[in-house]
């Protein structure tokens, strides 16, 4: 039997029979350890993601084994692969259909910058149409890199305020993409 690991308790006030902390921290930890990813896989990065999700690398260890194929029930949009300009509006619609709080992870050279496809038909990075939280470089990145990127997302989720969507900075970011 392997040792069961628990998440460390957040900073708070502890006494006999009680523990007090802020809702931000508790909910942040809860969200970070049960992120539901939506795999938007279009090419070879998707294959590496399959390896990441399979037993050897096992993304379930991070509470993300529940792949959501409905954007309504997803927390994390994982964009993996080349996004052509014709696919752009589809990706944007998927992002718009996700409920807050939502995060975006861009995996691989193509999703981050267009990669080798410097051409009229390919989107030169998905950040042209939707905001991105974490970029994973590589062509394609190894599963370790995907897990590293995922853990960076977890750190973001833990450290952000409970209602990121009410922050002026976040609203300004979305407005710069013409969202809301």
């Amino acid at each position, binding site marked *: 039997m392997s040792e069961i690991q628990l998440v460390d308790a957040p900073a708070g006030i502890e006494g006999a029979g009680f523990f007090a902390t802020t809702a931000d921290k508790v909910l942040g930890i809860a969200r970070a350890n049960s992120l539901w990813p939506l795999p938007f896989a279009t090419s070879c990065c998707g294959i590496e993601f399959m390896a990441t999700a399979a037993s050897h690398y096992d993304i379930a260890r991070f509470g993300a084994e529940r792949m959501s194929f409905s954007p309504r029930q997803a927390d994390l949009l994982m964009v993996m692969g080349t996004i052509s300009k*014709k696919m752009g509006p589809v990706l944007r619609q998927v992002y718009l259909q996700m409920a807050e709080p939502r995060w975006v992870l861009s995996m691989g050279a193509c999703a981050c*910058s267009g990669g080798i496809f*410097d*051409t*009229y*038909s390919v989107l030169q990075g998905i950040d*042209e149409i939707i905001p991105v939280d974490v970029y994973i470089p590589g062509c394609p990145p190894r599963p370790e890199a995907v897990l590293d990127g995922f853990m960076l997302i977890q750190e973001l989720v833990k450290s952000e305020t409970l209602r990121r969507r009410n922050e002026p900075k976040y609203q300004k970011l979305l407005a710069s993409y013409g969202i809301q």
Partner: protein
Amino acid sequence: MGKISNEDLLAKISAKFADKVTSVSEPFGLLTFETDREQIIEVLDFLKNDAALQFVYLTDLTGIHYPGQAKPIGVIYHLHSLVNNVRVRIKVFLADDDVHIPTATGLWHGANWMERETYDFFGVIFDRHPDLRRILNVDDMTAFPMRKEFPLEDPNRVDKKDYFFGR
């Protein structure tokens, strides 16, 4: 080898269309000739429906752009006679300011999407095509990207700019 030699095939075509068939060549044994848009459908119809030839299969229909030529835009048909195991290639060149050519959808329904693709990438207008609109590129694209004057690279690309490389 096919059941009909290229010489016999060319003789049959020349007998019917005489001087309307030009620039005959045989690269890699594939009979290739040019014709004009006025009788391209007639030529295709003859090749398809002639009892001996039976070029019933339209393998490919595509375009090409040679900017230096007097007629720079080309439309190319590849036909295959399944019965005789012979292929043939037909080229039609069009002037830059008049890229009209009759549609081949009356002969092959399969020409529909091929002609849409040729329109999408080269801007060739196929007259009387049932639904001539873009098929692969985004609908609001204004250029015809396979023409040589169109830059292949995306102008929004930032990570290849010279100042990143000290140039």
